């Protein structure tokens, strides 16, 4: 039996009871954001010479891939905070799973397989909405899907490691307020990074979201710099791999005592 598939199946069984709401919000969220900020705010940006500063593309085409990557980050963060800690602390579901032939490796891999599944659905829906808004300008945009999924995993794995060390949910508020939200706003999602104060710019380069945003944008705009693209992928893979290693250690420490 492949590693983690039973844990993946567990998530799918739970999802079967809640998918309606989740699908609706996966579609509604990009529609609202692209309509309000892409068309509404974008109209002002374009009329006031913003398109020039953005390399000649309309604001919505600049914004949409940034939001795609940010959506991946947020989905990953939500799915690996409360649900993971809840299964350790609240429901003790992982204890029940580990009493069967399943191992910690199955838990880790299976939960990540589920995160990848969720990201594929959410980001796929996002790309479809983007295309409907005319915000996709190159066939390379199809590659923005795996890039967005990888961006999500680059967050999911280290956050899972963090969640596995938590005894209650109070620190998740801190994570969202001082981690996820600033990244969402300041990683080149809404405006080019060179608008940030010079002192902050290097910080942004160190976070996975910047790389996800930059690469997704190059792909949907069709202007890929191969060397830069490789660098972006390497950073994202490093966060994912490092996070997986940490999550394995944290889960084992917490559950096998």
């Amino acid at each position, binding site marked *: 039996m492949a590693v983690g598939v*039973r844990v993946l*199946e567990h998530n799918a*069984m739970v999802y079967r*009871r809640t998918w309606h709401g989740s699908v609706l919000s996966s579609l509604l969220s990009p529609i609202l954001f692209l309509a309000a900020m892409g068309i509404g705010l974008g109209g002002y940006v374009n009329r006031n010479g913003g398109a020039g500063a953005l390399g000649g593309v309309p604001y919505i085409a600049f914004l949409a891939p940034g939001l795609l990557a940010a959506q991946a980050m947020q989905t990953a963060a939500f799915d690996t905070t409360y649900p993971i800690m809840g299964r350790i602390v609240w429901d*003790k579901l992982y*204890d*029940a799973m580990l*009493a069967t*032939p399943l191992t910690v490796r199955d838990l880790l891999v299976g939960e990540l397989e589920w995160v990848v599944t969720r990201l594929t659905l959410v980001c796929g829906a996002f790309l479809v909405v983007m295309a409907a808004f005319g915000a996709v300008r190159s066939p390379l945009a199809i590659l923005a899907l795996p890039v967005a999924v990888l961006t999500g995993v680059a967050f999911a794995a280290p956050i899972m490691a963090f969640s596995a060390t938590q005894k209650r949910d109070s620190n998740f508020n801190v994570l969202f307020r001082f981690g996820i939200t600033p990244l969402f706003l300041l990683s080149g999602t809404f405006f080019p990074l060179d608008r940030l104060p010079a002192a902050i710019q290097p910080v942004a380069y160190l976070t996975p979201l910047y790389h996800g945003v930059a690469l997704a944008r190059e792909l949907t705009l069709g202007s890929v710099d191969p060397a830069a693209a490789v660098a972006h992928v390497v950073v994202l893979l490093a966060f994912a791999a490092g996070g997986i290693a940490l999550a394995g250690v944290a889960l084992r420490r917490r559950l096998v005592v």
Partner: protein
Amino acid sequence: MAVPHAARDAVPFEADRVPPLIEARGLVKRFGTFTAVDSVDFEVAPGEAFGFLGPNGAGKTSTMRMIGCVSPLTDGYLRVLGLDPSTDGPRIRARLGVVPQADSLDMELTVRENLQIYGRYFDLSRREALRRAGELLEFVQLSERANDEVEPLSGGMKRRLVIARALINEPDLLLLDEPTTGLDPQARHLLWDRLYRLKQRGVTLVLTTHYMDEAEQLCDRLVVMDKAKIVAAGSPRELIERYSSREVAELRFAPGVQASLDGQLDGLADRVEWLPDRVLLYADDGEAAATAVHARGLRPESVLVRRSSLEDVFLRLTGRSLVD
């Protein structure tokens, strides 16, 4: 319900012929500097109902978790189903049923789905998992709740569902950690009845409890644990014979009187135990002991003569009452 494996090849226990299902020698579990289990030895034979009896913190759960292959041993020798937990964990767990202290049910799934997905963890086909889920819900009398959420179930129903879940893989060995703690008497008796039926089918039961009546009801053999060690072992009957007497007379005196009785009860019983609120006389004939008390001119407010129980054994062994 399908017949568990153990029933098919159940044979009467003979130490030199049938290998034990569980064999522990010098088993140790430490958490940092705290020793939860301090070098314990025990064996469990196929088809047996074996109990760990002791107060909270005695090391029962830690021992169970090591047997369940979810907690590595710090030291010692342990074989479960003839296999080594440190290398064969998943293979052993495939043949165990576990009823943990906390229910650990999936609140996001229905009653039936809880069983189905658990069957899948044991690699049952979807069809087989569904079939066994139906049978087990029947067995624990939860069929009418099959499609309900888990949350609104009563404590006793949740406990029964956890037992059904532990049986989904038709285990050779069922581990129950305080199966009836927190349940009302009715729920408890229903649960005992189900466990008794499993035992009759040949399923080997290993359980922890801090209830004396539970140990007496369910266990063929048990060990008494206190402060990380085994302090006595035997059948309930043997333990009572060895560490107690056939009967006990419980005497309650008016407030203040008990303290002034100094020496006046000497020689009336095999052993006299002074508790804060009453005096226990251990004797083969409790009625005779009580009569002798009256013959000495003492007038207790109440006299209760009862059969001796494991509670008395525990008191004798540790000097403390079991449930405080």
